[in-house]
Each structure stands twice: as C-alpha cells, then as structure tokens.
C-alpha cells in the first residue's frame, strides 16, 4: 500500500515553478509544469546540492540555480553529458489536490 500525503492545491504552486515542502529528512521540491503536470524531487542537485526548487522550469526539466545542471523532473537524472541523480517521488493529483508518496 502506498502512503499518500496531501501537499496542497495545485494552484498554490506557480506554473513553470515550484514550492518547497519540508520534511524531517530534508526539503522536497514540488514542481508544476506548463501543462499542469506535477512532479516531486528531493531538493538537492546531484552536483553541488543546489536547491532545485529555485530553478527555471521548462518542459519536464529544471535548471539548477547554482551551476545550470539540467535535471529531469520525472527521473531525477541529470541530462546531457552531466551525470548524477537526485531522488524522485511519486505524485498524483485528485480533485485539484496534490498528493505525494514519501
């Protein structure tokens, strides 16, 4: 059984943007794309631990604000020639509310 935690309404995350959810194990970045898909990543870039939640979001990617590594939102993998991965969490949207499986 998956354990879903309610995060909040989709509208409270800006389109092509992100909000942070704090947990005892560290921050999780909740992303919303231009087509209203929702993703969640551990809020640390695999490169130098930059807060991905603060990056520019495009397509299903985010550019880390520190050194512009580009991270895939669904897998957490670095794209292009860069190599590294941050933890991705499953999310779902029901009745306009975001849920995350931590």
């Amino acid at each position: 059984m998956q354990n879903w935690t309610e995060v909040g309404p989709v509208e409270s995350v800006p389109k092509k943007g992100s909000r942070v959810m704090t947990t005892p194990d560290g921050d999780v970045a909740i992303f919303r794309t231009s087509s209203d898909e929702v993703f969640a990543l551990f809020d640390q870039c695999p490169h130098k631990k930059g807060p991905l939640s603060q990056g520019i979001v495009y397509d299903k990617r985010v550019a880390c604000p520190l050194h512009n590594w580009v991270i895939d939102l669904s897998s957490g993998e670095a794209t292009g020639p860069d190599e590294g991965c941050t933890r991705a969490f499953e999310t779902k949207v029901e009745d306009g509310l975001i849920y995350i499986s931590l």
Partner: protein
Amino acid sequence: MKEKLVLIGNGMAGVRTLEELLKLAPEKYDITVFGDEPYGNYNRIMLSPVLAGDKTIDQIMINDRQWYVDNGITLHAGKKITHINRVKRQVETAEGEVFEYDRLLMATGSRPFMLPLPGRDLPGVISFRDIADVDNMLETAKSYKKAVVIGGGLLGLEAANGLMIQGMEVTVVHIADVLMNQQLDKPASDLMLNELQAKGLNFLMSHETAAIEGKKRVEKVVFKNGTEIDTDLVVMAVGIRPNIELAQSAGIHCERGIVVDDTMQTFDPKVYAVGECVQHRGATFGLVAPLFEQAKVCANHLAQMGIARYVSSITSTKLKVTGIDLFSAGNFIGDESTEDLVFKDAARHVYKKLVIQDDKLIGAVLYGDTVDGAWYFQLMRDGTDVSSIRENMLFGQHHIGDSGHGATNSVDGLPDDAEICGCNGVCKGDIVKAISKHSLFTLDEVKAHTKASASCGSCTGLVEQLLASTLGSDFNDTPSKKAMCGCTSMSHGEVKNAIKEQELKTISDLMTALEWKTADGCHSCRPALNYYLLSTWPDYQDDPQSRFINERVHANIQKDGTYSVVPRIWGGVTNANELRAIADISDKYKVPTVKITGGQRIDLLGVKKDDLPKMWADLSEAGFVSGHAYGKSLRTVKTCVGSEWCRFGTQDSTGLGIKVEKMTWGSWTPHKFKIAVSGCPRNCAEATIKDFGIVCVDSGYELHVGGNGGIKVRATDFLCKVATEEEAMEYCAAFMQLYREDAHYLERTAPWIERVGLKSVQAKVVDDHDNRKILAQRFYESQEKSQDDPWAEHAAKQRENYIPIKQVG
C-alpha cells in the same frame, strides 16, 4: 510502417546528418547506409596524422560498426550503389541487389582531381583521399626513396609532411608562387616556405607539370619549363571535384555539384544531398564546418520540422598544417580601396595582416599566433567600426584597453595538467581527452562535456586552439551566425527585430510566431525573451518564472541555498541611524556575515528564504529600498567625497552620484550596470572601469563609457565632456537607454561597444542632440514604472512564495 531512408555515402557529412536526425526524430525512419569503403565512418581530416604515424585507423573512427547496431541502422560497408531508379524509388548495388527508399540522402563526397597528364596511370601515381591511399603511401615508403607531391595546398602539404616523416625525400611542386593560396597571402606563404624547408621539405614553386614518365612505374616528373625531377612516387593533391556521376546518371540536376536549395533538397523532392558533393548557390565545399551546418539543416527537414535554412556566408578557417597555426577569413588580399595593417616578426614565426575598408575589418590572415582569430572574425561579421581601436587591434583583443586574464596565447607548449579554464578547473589533458573520446567537433560540445569556457568565457580562444590541434588540420569552427540557444536558429538580433516588426507581446506569442523548437524554451532563452519584451513594450506583464532566481526573489542565492540582502545606500553615503537599523535587523534575523561590498554598501549574508519578506518589511520601515545587487539592472553609483570635503575636489561628486542613482535605480538592463562619479582626475571612485563613469574636472564633467573591472579589465572609452550636472545626467540617461535597446541580453557595455563601435554610440548620444533627448525621454518614461520598491511590494503582497507549501513532521 516506418518510412525508409537510404543514405549513399558513409562519410562525415552523411553520418553527421543521421546523428542530427536521430536527436530530432529517433523513431521516424528505417535507415540503411551504403559506403564504398569497408569501414565505419572515420574522420577523413585525420588521415594526415595516420600517415605521419601519430594515430592509427582505430583512433580516427567516429562511428564504429557497433554505433550502427546500437542505433538500429543497417550498414552495407563495401557495397557500391550503381543505379538509382527515381520512379520506383529504388537503389541498386553493383551486385544487382535492390533496396527501396521513401527518402534518399546523397552524401557521395568528392574525389581528388587527377591532372590529365601523360603517364598519370603509371603505378606509383596516387591521390591522397582515403585509407587505401594512406596504406599505399606507407607501403611505398618502405621500399622507395623519393616522392613528389603535386599541389601546395593544405592536403598536399600534409601528404608531403607525412611522407617525409616516413623517411622519404619529398619535393612539393606548386603551380603558383604562394602556398595554400586559398588561405594565405605571399608574406605568410614565404614564412611557411622557410619553416617547411628548414624541416627538410623541398619546393619547386611556379612549376607546372607537363608529364609523368616511367617504364614499369613512375620514374620522373617533367615540367613545362623543360626541367625534370626523378621520383618513385607521385601524389596528386591539386584539388577535389564533387562526386556527381551517380546523381547525374539518375537525372538529378547537377552543375559542378549536385544542386541543392536552402533546405538541402535536390531537384527531386524525395532526394536530399549534403557535403562535398553538393553545390549550394554556386558554391562547393571542402571544409568540415559548413558540412556540419548542412547536416543540421538537412536533418531538420528529414524530421519534417521544416524550419531550418542553410545560408553560407563569410567563413573563417582555422588550420593547423604540419604543426603551424594558421587563420584566415574574408578578403585577406585586399585591393586599391583597402588598407592593410601588418605585423611581422620572422624570428618568432609570427605574421598578421588585417584588411580594412571604410573603417571596417573585411579580412585577416594570421600565421603562427591565431589566438585572436575568433575576435577578428566577430568584428568582421558584426561590421564593427574599428576606427577607434585600429592603433592597437593588430596586437589582439588583450591590448584593447584591458589587461586580460592570463597571459597564455598558445596551448601547444603546455603540459597536460596546465589549467585552461580557471573558473571550472579544467586542464588541457581533460579537454583533449574529451574531444577524442566523445568525438567532439564544436566549442559548444566541449563546453557541455568539460565545462571549459562555459562560465566566464575568457579561455574560449585557448579551447578553440585545442579543438584545432586535436581534430587535425582541417578545423573550421565559426558558424555563420550564432543562434540564441538550442531552442531556435535565430540570433539575438533577429529575435529583437521580430519582436518589434511583428509586435510580439508575450513569450508564448513569440515562441509560436517564431516557431520555437521547444514548448517552454529553456533557462537560457526565457530570461532573454522576458528582458527583450520588457524593454520593448512599456505595458509588458513581467514573467517571474522566466527570471533567474535572484531576480525572482530580489536577493542573491548563495552556495548553501540561503540569500544575501543588500539595501540601497544612495551614493555610498549613510548615517548613524541607518547603520543602527541595519545592526538591529542583523541581530533580529541572526545574520551570520555582514560585509562591506566593493560598491560602497552593506551585504547581509546567510538569510533564510522565509525570512526575506519579514526582513524587507523591517528595512522598508527604516527607509531602505532594494539595492538590486541581484539584478541585471543598475547596481551602484560609487562616489568619492568630492568638493564638499576633499581639498582636491573640483565638483560635488557625492551629490551628483546620489542624483544619478535616484534617476537610474530600478531600471532593468541587458546585464548589470555600474556607475561611478569621481570628484577630480585622481579618480578615487574608479570611474574609468565602470559602465558609465563621470570624472569631474574644474571646467565640467568628463563622461566615460564601456569600462569593466571583471573578467577582462577594460578601461572606459571617452564619450565626451559636458559643462553642467544636468547635461551629465541627460547623457547618462540617453546612454543607458541606448544600451537597453541595442545590446544583446547578457552583453555588458564593454563587449557591446566593441561590437557596435564607439563611433556609432557617439553618433547617437553625442552628435545627434535630438536623438539624445528622445533616448533620455524614453528612459525617464520607463523609469516611472520601474521605481516601485520590489522589497516593499513582495513583503506586503507575495509572502506566500517565500514559505513552504507544507511542513511535515
């Protein structure tokens, strides 16, 4: 059913097209490749090092057979296509096998031109084109002594050098008196001749071959002037001709090459062609860079995206021939309407010639020291007015009012552990390894893989040299125009024009109208587009999600994810009450580090994001506004104390600095913008390394522009002198507005002025009084909307964006 794509010609241009196509539409086609040679795709320009014994065949493979397997491509290496049936859309091999296609890509390349001389069929007369030729030469060198190379071009010299290293006694025969006459002028050729003679090569210049003679194999070459020379081997390297027989036999329109349009399509819409076999707008091709550009365009159309066009324009050539660095571009010979700037130091083997026409650079030849090649090419491409830099430009970019970064201008002698990129700590060895291992061909690819030159860019020239020396002689780097980013093929200038001409008002309208390749753009183009729209349309609704984090939250992100807060301190003048407020606020929010900045204000470092709006509310209450230390915007106006206190001060520099800051704060600019006002020529405010600097003198105010104290230190250019404070401020507003409207995003005033030329700035801001007033007026109008303090606004209205959406546990 997937469509069938057949590629004839397993060379660099054809396979590069497939690589580009696989990036765009990996599943679109069933791909079959036919190649005459029994190998995968190898780097033909590396045949010279193979001949010289520096590399093996394996080391110059770009795509080995496994690559074809991995990408689901069927490779028929060693099968020759002899017939194309365009009606049935079939190709036929020499053995009679038939294959069908939906689209056909011809990349049949070129063959060496063999002079129609008596005796040219004798054994021992060969060309220098493929692996078989190299094998032949290596074999000959084992049992014979003398070789003649006909043709003193790039290929001929490489062949001669390789044969000499293999132990042969080599004579190069050239019909003209200038070696490599496509790339060099006479003085450069003479230097090269001397250097190559010293290495042991012999030359017969201005010699035209009449016949090749011999009984069972070649024995001698006879010249039209009656002389002759004994030899055991003749290598013909007099040029290449596009390979068009197959296309001709299929009735595809050919002239000197297979004629293609700007989409690389032949006269048969099902048939495309790329590489050395094509003729585009009358031109044929022999260097690598244009082929790669063609490959990109062709792939785009094969993927049915239909937006790219191939446009060839002035090209530059950066070459390394037998260890000598060469660069040439444009019209480097000149005529009676041009002027030459020439530098020659024969002892150091350095020669530079720049050709200037109507104050613009139109051609360049560099021999021995090529580090400034890219810069000269940039000046040519941009049509920059060079009159203000001509006295120094021959010595290179480092001598244009700047002391530069590092002193290295040649990478050849450096050891592998020499650091090339100081920002990212990348050594020469890392770069060379990445170029070989990942088959990199362009500066952008090297940036992506190694991060070298990906930050400040000051080592770009060195990285380009490494590309040239690692890739071999025929390296040509510079694309004819620079696209904004991977999302479009349009340049910054073209996008800016389109915004005005097509009245594009939002980022999404722009991306639709200009056929952006990606739905949302990327982190590189979105901030640029947001700025262009903002600076063009006064009523534009700013898009915070297209801004870098610092501008989105009005603070500077630090390495640990906290922020720094810098309140504005007008002209660097403060008082006890303000300092007390800053001290109290620092205590309240437990600010770990308080630092005085170089711009005469106070930086509060290590603030948590959720504290930002609370802190701003407190700062607002104490009378502070945002210092925009985080923005592509006006940063500070640095001042010295001036006539109010200083015994040398000529004018009230502090008072003027505060007035200027009150006028300019809050304005968005293409990159950060710094101002300073000094009270006398001793210049304590360092005004001559700012974007706009005012130096007060007894009789008025000297205005300086385009300085920089960063990556490349650049002293300002003198704009003009004015008599009053009011004039100084009007000139400042007009200059800033011109910069805002004219520069590319992320282009500081220094490179902008070097691109457009100081003269053009002076013409618009100084000489044309009406235009100055119009520019200043536009600046004032745009300032009416941008001088609301973002801190006060965010503290009052947008607190939600600074706090977590949820806290668990």
